[in-house]
């Protein structure tokens, strides 16, 4: 069972990786994610406030699953920002998948700023119960 975790507010900015640069003008943060495993699939739940289904890109290349969520920071018309505790920006994170994931059936849903990725396990990797017999 999961332990109750206190709610964190700080956002972590991504560290610049080798060779690549971001050409967008906004900050980029590492999205917080919970990863849990069921018997037949692995589920990734990630916080992407401000992004909806049209602004999230998920790509799978070789074994690396990359999630890019683009957020447009809109300032309300006629208002000035006088107090800020968080910055608005994009989110990016990569995960390395093992061979036991069935790549063709990966499913992604986003609702209320939460992205849920369902990664089904390929047939051989499903958890099988092995019963123990006396003898």
């Amino acid at each position, binding site marked *: 069972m*999961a*332990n*109750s*975790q*206190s*709610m*964190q*507010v*700080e956002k972590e900015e991504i560290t610049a990786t080798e060779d690549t640069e971001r050409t967008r003008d906004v900050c980029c943060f590492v999205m*917080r*994610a*919970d*990863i*849990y*495993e*069921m*018997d037949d699939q*692995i589920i990734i*739940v990630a*916080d*992407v*406030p*401000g*992004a*909806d289904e049209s602004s999230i890109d998920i790509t799978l290349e070789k074994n690396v699953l990359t999630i890019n969520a683009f957020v447009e920071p809109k*300032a*309300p018309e*006629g*208002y*000035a*920002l*006088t*107090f*800020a*505790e*968080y*910055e608005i920006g994009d989110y990016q994170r990569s995960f390395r998948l093992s061979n036991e994931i069935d790549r063709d059936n990966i499913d992604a849903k986003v609702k*209320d*700023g*939460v992205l849920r990725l369902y990664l089904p396990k390929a047939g051989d990797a499903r958890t099988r119960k092995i019963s123990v017999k006396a003898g």
Partner: protein
Amino acid sequence: MYRQYRFPTTWREMDRLQREMNRLFEDQYPGRLRRAPSYPAMNIWTSNDGLIVTAEAPGVSPDDIDISVVGETLTLSGVRKPDELNEGARYHRQERGYGNFTRSIQLPFPVIVGEVEATFRDGVLSIVMPRAEEDKPRKIAVKSA
């Protein structure tokens, strides 16, 4: 602070230098981010006619959020529920927290409580509050006597 007035020019120079340094750092990092004391982090946008408070609360259902405005204090409370899991689920990583949260914040000016509107979209909560009429800045005409 006890100042020695034996060398007034020295202290004045030091004050001026201090102010210059402050101004320099203000320009480098305008609008420094403050550290939120608790969840959720909030931004406040103000204008002469009102203010907008935005907070990021992904995964919280709009029914679970309570917003109340009393005088110049806005209180935001609610609960973020964890995902329902079947038996046999194992966690590899847990970075998102969940539970109850309550946050109060002092508003810069009084607002019309009856006209406060809140919208929740893609995990971002926006609360639009129009400024109280008596508090709006007024132009005072200068008449020649």
